[in-house]
């Protein structure tokens, strides 16, 4: 599998402010890659470096196999970009801007343009100054999605869109995936990333703190378990990888229910816990894999010390967690 985006050790500072501090990012051909991070963590700066708008201070950056600073113009024929905050020339109509940007990228599909206008319910005859934020976003999205390009770079593309339009956007990205296009999706909407992306990169304060497939990430984190048991369990607190254990004695309540267990367990230690539980006679069991939100919060909650830079976060399929 070819790497469409390969970033390693990326550093960029504005004066004394360090915006990127050894960032790692790897996106394979044909994947939809989630790019997550809190406000000000360096997502937009990274994207601007990828677009050749900013020159990096250090590290290696390859986009579609080339240096985005040197080959910016040639690369831009092969990608389309949707900024997070779309501003348009106020006295151009939406339709004019869609066409202009598409043509300047090197061409667009007229049929696709028409169908996208319909799907996103955008009136292309209105002047840009009269568009709401969501409608300005749609102009940039339609222009990008209708362009003949290999790579889409989307910076919080659904901000300002209503839920119906968000759904339309998800459908479009699903189609893009089917069509073999690569998508880098920077987003705050975790459910969106969870629904669309196979792999994600989570950054914080200009560094990559976690990267890999969602499935692998879940595996390394805790699953929450809630079980009703017929007998009192034994030795749960001695099991490795079990956290926040809470055993309630329910024997006084009548019926077969004797105990209710709630806990979190490291997902790779799930097996041991389940054996113990079944020994105590499972009446009901709810097992919840960690949501992306929990993954996300684990990295950002409390604002603890910034982890050291990830040493060589590897390419597709691999997963590494950097100890916090």
């Amino acid at each position, binding site marked *: 599998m070819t790497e469409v985006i390969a970033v390693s050790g990326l550093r960029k500072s504005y004066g004394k402010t360090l915006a990127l501090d050894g960032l790692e990012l790897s996106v394979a051909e044909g994947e939809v890659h989630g790019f997550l991070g809190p406000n000000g963590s360096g997502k937009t700066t990274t994207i*601007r470096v990828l*677009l050749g*708008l*900013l*020159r990096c201070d250090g590290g290696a950056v390859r986009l579609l196999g080339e240096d985005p600073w040197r080959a*910016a*113009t*040639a690369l*831009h*024929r092969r*990608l*389309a*970009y949707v*900024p997070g*905050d*779309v*501003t*348009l*020339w*106020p*006295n*151009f*109509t939406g*339709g*004019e*801007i*869609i*066409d*202009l*940007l598409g*043509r*300047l*990228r*090197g061409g667009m599909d007229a049929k696709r343009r028409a169908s996208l206008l319909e799907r996103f319910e955008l*009136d*292309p*005859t*209105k*002047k840009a*100054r*009269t568009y709401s934020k969501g409608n300005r976003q749609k102009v*940039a999205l339609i222009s990008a999605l209708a362009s003949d390009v290999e790579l889409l*770079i989307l910076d919080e593309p659904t901000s300002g869109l209503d839920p119906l339009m968000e759904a339309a956007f998800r459908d479009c990205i699903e189609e893009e995936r089917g069509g073999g296009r690569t998508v880098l999706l920077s987003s705050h909407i975790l459910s969106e990333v969870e629904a669309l992306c196979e792999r994600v990169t989570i950054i914080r304060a200009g560094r990559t703190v976690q990267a890999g497939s969602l499935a692998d990430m879940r595996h390394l984190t805790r699953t929450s378990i809630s079980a009703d048991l017929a007998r009192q369990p034994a030795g749960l607190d001695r099991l490795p990888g079990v956290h926040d254990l809470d055993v309630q004695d329910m024997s006084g309540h009548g019926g077969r229910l004797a105990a209710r267990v709630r806990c979190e367990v490291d997902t790779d230690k799930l097996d041991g816990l389940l054996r113990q539980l079944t020994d105590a006679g499972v009446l009901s069991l709810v097992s919840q894999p960690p949501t992306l939100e929990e993954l996300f919060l684990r990295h950002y909650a409390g604002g603890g010390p910034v982890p050291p830079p990830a040493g060589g976060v590897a390419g597709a399929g691999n997963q590494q967690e950097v100890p916090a």
Partner: protein
Amino acid sequence: MSSLAGLRDLIRLAARRDRIMLVAWVYVLTILVVSTGYSFKGLYKTEASREALASGIGHNAATLALAGPLYNDSLGALAAYKVGTATALAAGLMGIFIVIRHTRADEEAGRLELVGSTAVGRHTALAVGLVLAAVANAVLALLIFAGCCVVGLGAGGSAALGLAIGTCGLFFAAVAAVAAQVSASARGARGIAIFVLVAAYLIMSAGAAAGHGGGRWLLWASPVGWVTQVRAYAGDSWPVLALPVAAAAAVAAGAALLASRRDLGASLVPPRPGPAAAAGSLRSPLALAWRLNRAALAGWVAGALVYGAALGSIAHNIGSLLGSGAGVRTAITRLGGQSGLSDAYLATMMSIFGLVAAGYAISVVLRMWSDEAGDRAEPLLATAVSRLSWAASQLFIAVAGSVLVLGAAGLGAGLTSGLRGADVGSQVTRLLGAALAQLPAALVVAGVAAALFGLLPRSCVAGGWTALALAAVILLLGPTLRLAQWVQDISPFSHVPKLPGGSGSPAALAWLALIAVALGASGLLGLRRRDIG
């Protein structure tokens, strides 16, 4: 009044936002008036020289149309004739800019929505703009009064002149308040208000050109005419000042009425739908630059043509206009001319058009920065448009637009001055050449803005306009102030041959062109290497 809730806090905010701009406007306009009074005092020392000047002006419909009627030959009246109308127009522009900036511009940008959601009245923003404009004009009136008194033009007339100018500014601030309700965009609102200002000026011109003939009443029909009807230093008709004040109050009340009947963001003129698809030709950075600049360029070219024609029409009589004072003739000759007073006058006017062209070119160059700072450049540069082709397109428009502006000025001046002389054809050729000779100097000034945009983008707006202001001060005041030669040499316009009539070295033009190219190229190189946004 609850519809004005929060007024005091928002006025403080607005005053803080505008502190530099307001001070600059008031300062420049005051200097314009006071320095004219001061220089007239030196130029027309004798009664006879003033009499000759006054009779020259009074017998020429064109000069009267340009600046309004002249009432007597006192120093104050002559100075008021020379700058009164122009300053009143500028004060009107100041009022328009202040009001639109705090009403429709904030509304369009969405800032008013945020502010309006707090405990702020429906009419507060409108009132903020009007109060700020009123204060600025009041201070301007006061400073003109004080300055002219210091120069020694007489207290009564100075007060009348200051108030005539200040109330004119106030009236157009009120006009802008209505325009802000009518148009949905700040640009459109400014356009409407400036249109009213220009119309008022043209009506005044027609009234003044009529002399004592039938069209005299037109002076009463125009708010710009009212400035002249105050007769500063020539009887001081104080009651006339009630006209602009009452009219401003009535117009502002109308604006308040319109504001209370419309929704936030709405306008009386609904925005029209446009094409659903881009024209086939809109497919290159140059086509985009043309589309973004064409409307403004048309305005600049039309303005240069009309203004050139107006100035050209009085070139023939310039001898009688200047009076017999030897001081005036040396001053004009020092300002530029070598042979023939008429040519000397035209040469001076052409340098002023050089400044105008430089101003146009700077505004086009700086558009790149406003596009970059406003995040409009980012999506554009994320397409296959290279930085170089983006900037080169805009610079091309700046150069070609300057050629058109100068050409229009030369054409207008050539046509009218030629018609009053004998040979239109050769006069047009001479003045076209004279106007275009200003191009390299104008481009050097704009080149400073372009170089700064590439190398120190954050300073390009201030730096570009400072370069123009410096060139303007040296060109307009340098000879009168007897600035040292090396100071005058800083301005590129000091090296342009005095055309028409005079001689000069074409080599200087080549050097200026070379410097302009070097400045532009360094800007492009800087842009290639720096971060965007």
